[in-house]
């Protein structure tokens, strides 16, 4: 009973924290985690001709590809190039980046 306020506070701050990451930091993360190096500053100018433009892509699709490349479930194509940087992106951050990229102008 005594614990309830603490549990509630923890749950609330966790929710606020994750909400905060998603809303505010997608853009920052996109540059910081070096996505822009290959996919371009606006997600539609790629380093190599066989890299995908990602601006405006479906949010769920972006998230799934990032998770799969990170886990190694997806290892075809140019995944190897991206896998090297996925170690520095948490699942939470993946969500925020996917959200941001999906809203970029294609």
């Amino acid at each position: 009973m005594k614990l309830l306020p603490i549990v509630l506070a923890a749950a609330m701050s966790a929710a606020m924290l994750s909400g905060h990451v998603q809303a505010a930091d997608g853009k920052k993360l996109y540059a910081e985690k070096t996505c822009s190096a290959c996919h371009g500053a606006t997600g539609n100018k790629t380093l190599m001709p066989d890299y995908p433009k990602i601006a405006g892509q479906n949010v769920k699709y972006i998230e799934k590809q990032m998770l799969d490349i990170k886990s190694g479930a997806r290892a075809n194509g140019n995944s190897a190039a991206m896998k090297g940087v996925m170690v520095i992106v948490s699942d939470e951050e993946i969500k925020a980046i996917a959200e941001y990229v999906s809203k970029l102008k294609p």
Partner: protein
Amino acid sequence: MNKRLVAALVLALVPAVAFAGAPAPKKEGIEGKGYVWNAQEGEKIEALHKKGDVKAGQEAYEICGACHLPSGAGRPDGTFPQLAGQHTTVVIKQMADIRAGLRDNPTMYPFAQTLTDAQELADVAAYIEKLCIPVDHGKYEGADAAMQVAKGKDLYEKQCLECHGKNGEGNKEKFYPVIAGQHYKYLLRQMTEIRDGHRRNANPDMVKIIKPYTNDQLIAISAYQSSMSMPGAMCKAKPGKKK
């Protein structure tokens, strides 16, 4: 006749395929019997003979800076190494090795590939060498840091110092890298890969020396190396900026 036609077709297709971001070529490295470290051949030699233009290099570095940061600082998590102040010879050799398929780095390869020629390589290397070494790189952060650094210093002075220098300055003429200011995690990863034969462009002399080292010893050596400082080459701490 048919064979010739096929050969011609294959030849015609090769450049197109290569341009479409084909996987890195694979050149025989330390795993092969005929491996010669730092063979004096190819694009590396061409770039080494060119005079690097710092200004042109600064422009070319813009692409590098997306991952290695404009300051050259890389990332403390060890994914991207600190580059600032590195010897031109080392940058040129490593880039040429990655381009030639002698050092495996799938993340770096496409960037190395888009570099145009030996002159641009010389330019970028000249620019990188001129940058001061950032002082806020990743260090060993365990509670036993002081002990690890002391243990690492001992080991470093026994076998590493001779080539890598008292202050981690390396040796430009011999292609030995500056390690002062490098991230702890990057140092540990590279030493482990060199010991285990995964860094295929490694110097066999170093591999021989590092082979018997345990993981714990490499941790201590990395801890010490990342605590080193090269007088005159480090950036001045920004005044008023809290650490």
